[in-house]
């Protein structure tokens, strides 16, 4: 599903340049649930941003579902993101003046899905994250866990090839974190490919494969026995 070869990325900081990714090689199959771990500054978020086409690599190859991702114009990147990728952010990034349902429907709007179908679909995905009754509520009326579930519903509504989650539990307490992870696991059980950036070991253990990044290179890549989050959820 994802194939990257010798990926480099550095940031210019005034006269210095900060080499963040120093040759990443990585591939992942459809249906995997991968945790990307590392201390802060290890380059894990940068890697996810490049995978999410929110940022561009300096050199290296990136193929997503057989499509080579290179020479991206903003418009092309936007179209790929819309078609291939779903995002879940640490700070949820819901649009605050839109209701839960409208937030979920937004990627469908950019896919030019007709209005009625958008509404049906977004209700369906809200139902799946257990928030159907909250459809008309604004993000400010939802708890942190609920917001993240809306964000996940939004990411899933576009039916992406890959779901990218950047510290999805970073702003949540452990109980809500497990609820969110339970949801992510269920989505993965349905065959979706998910990449989760985290620095919490217990969250990483709930994935099927863990990648450790350190100083811009992958130092460890192992399959793990998945811990089901459902046992912590009442």
């Amino acid at each position: 599903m994802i194939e990257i070869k010798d990926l480099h990325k550095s940031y210019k900081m005034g006269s210095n340049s900060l080499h963040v990714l120093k040759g990443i090689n990585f591939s992942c199959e459809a249906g995997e649930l991968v945790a990307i771990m590392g201390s802060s500054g290890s380059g894990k978020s940068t890697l996810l941003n490049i995978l999410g086409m929110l940022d561009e690599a300096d050199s290296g190859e990136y193929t997503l579902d057989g499509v080579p991702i290179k020479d991206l114009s903003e418009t092309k990147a936007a179209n790929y993101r819309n078609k291939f990728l779903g995002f879940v952010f640490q700070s949820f990034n819901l649009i605050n003046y839109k209701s839960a349902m409208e937030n979920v429907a937004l990627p469908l709007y950019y896919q030019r899905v007709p209005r009625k179908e958008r509404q049906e679909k977004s209700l369906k995905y809200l139902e799946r994250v257990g928030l159907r009754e909250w459809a008309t509520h604004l993000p400010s009326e939802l708890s942190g866990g609920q917001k993240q579930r809306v964000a996940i519903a939004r990411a899933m509504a576009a039916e992406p090839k890959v779901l990218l989650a950047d510290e999805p539990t970073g702003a949540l307490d452990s109980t809500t974190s497990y609820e969110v992870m339970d949801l992510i696991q269920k989505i993965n059980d349905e065959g979706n490919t998910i990449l989760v950036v985290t620095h919490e070991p217990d969250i990483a253990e709930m994935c099927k494969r863990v990648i450790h990044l350190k100083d811009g290179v992958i130092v460890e890549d192992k399959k793990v026995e998945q811990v089901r989050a459902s046992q912590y959820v009442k």
Partner: protein
Amino acid sequence: MLSRDTWKEIFETIQKNKLRTFLTGFTVALGIFIFVTLFGMGNGLNNTFAKFFGDDATNVFFVFPGRTTIPYKGYKANRRIEFENKDLTDIEDKFSMLLEYISPRITRNALVTYNDESDNYSTRAVGPAHQFAEKTILMKGRYINENDIKGKTKYAVIGRLVEQDLFKGEESIGKFIDLGGSVFKVIGVFQDDGGDNEERNIYIPFTTRQLIEKNTDKIDQIILAFRPEIGYAGAMAFEGKLDAFLRDKKFISPEDPNGIFIRNVADNLKQNQQFAAVLQIIISGIAFAVIISGIIGISNIMVFVVKERTKEIGIRKALGATPRKVTNSILFESIFITTISGFVGMIIGVVVLGQIGGKTLEDDYFITNPYIASGTAVFATILLIVCGTIAGYIPARRAAKIKPIVALRDE
């Protein structure tokens, strides 16, 4: 160009960001409102101006005699010049090709009495043609005619306010009034656009006045009109010829600045029109500045709006919005708001102009019938919308180009 869906998205955004919408709309509406009212007031000022100077015929010369200051052809300086009846016929003979009409005018103040009512009024002893020079409008009865001049009749044409003051609503035609010791019969009542003072005049035949004043043939002033076909240049030439003719006839040095005066209304009119034009330019300048500051106002708000929405733009881009879609939605939102509020401001301005026009404004502030041509108002509104759009496009485009990760980091 835009699907119904896009519009719906724009409406929703507008609806849910009321403060932002209000700020933008208010700036535009206020700008247009100020422009419309200011411009309208300017036009009102111009109207008053036209009214002040539009009272008399525009093809008229007023000729006044003066006192010489230079000795000439054996005559001493400081000699008083006087016109007499002969001068009228001489001018008529000499300039028959250029002249449309001519009338003398002898002005005297007189105590006028009817029954118990009396007051001082200015009487003007004139010829029949004077009616055209002053644009006197007859309400009833008739004006002084040639027979009155020949017969030296004791007939008077009184102003509307004279009738009102002396007759108190009674019918005045055919009644007799005492005018400075002589009895005159009222044969007509007139009104005049030149204001209240004009309507406190009384016209009598000039020959009658001369008869009363010991059968003299002296005249105070001569009022004459040239044929309008000769145009402005022709009028100026006529003025020069008339001046030379009268100086020659009355033995006044061509260099003497005081012997004779000719007031050329055409010349005045031209000056007045220039003055009015300058006034209009000043007003237009101010109005233009208002529009410019309106444009700057919208630009500032657009920059603020886009800045405020940076994070939202980042989210939308992450979800698959192309830069073009981002730019379009910001732009159409601003066009929609500026158009609606622009026209609202314009309509309010026009309505306010219509409401404030009235007697107080006219008398105290010299503003008559303030109005704005609908073309001007619409043009200014559209100009503001177009400039607002251009001003909005630049920050919108820049925002659309921000990398999503940069935009997402914005708090």
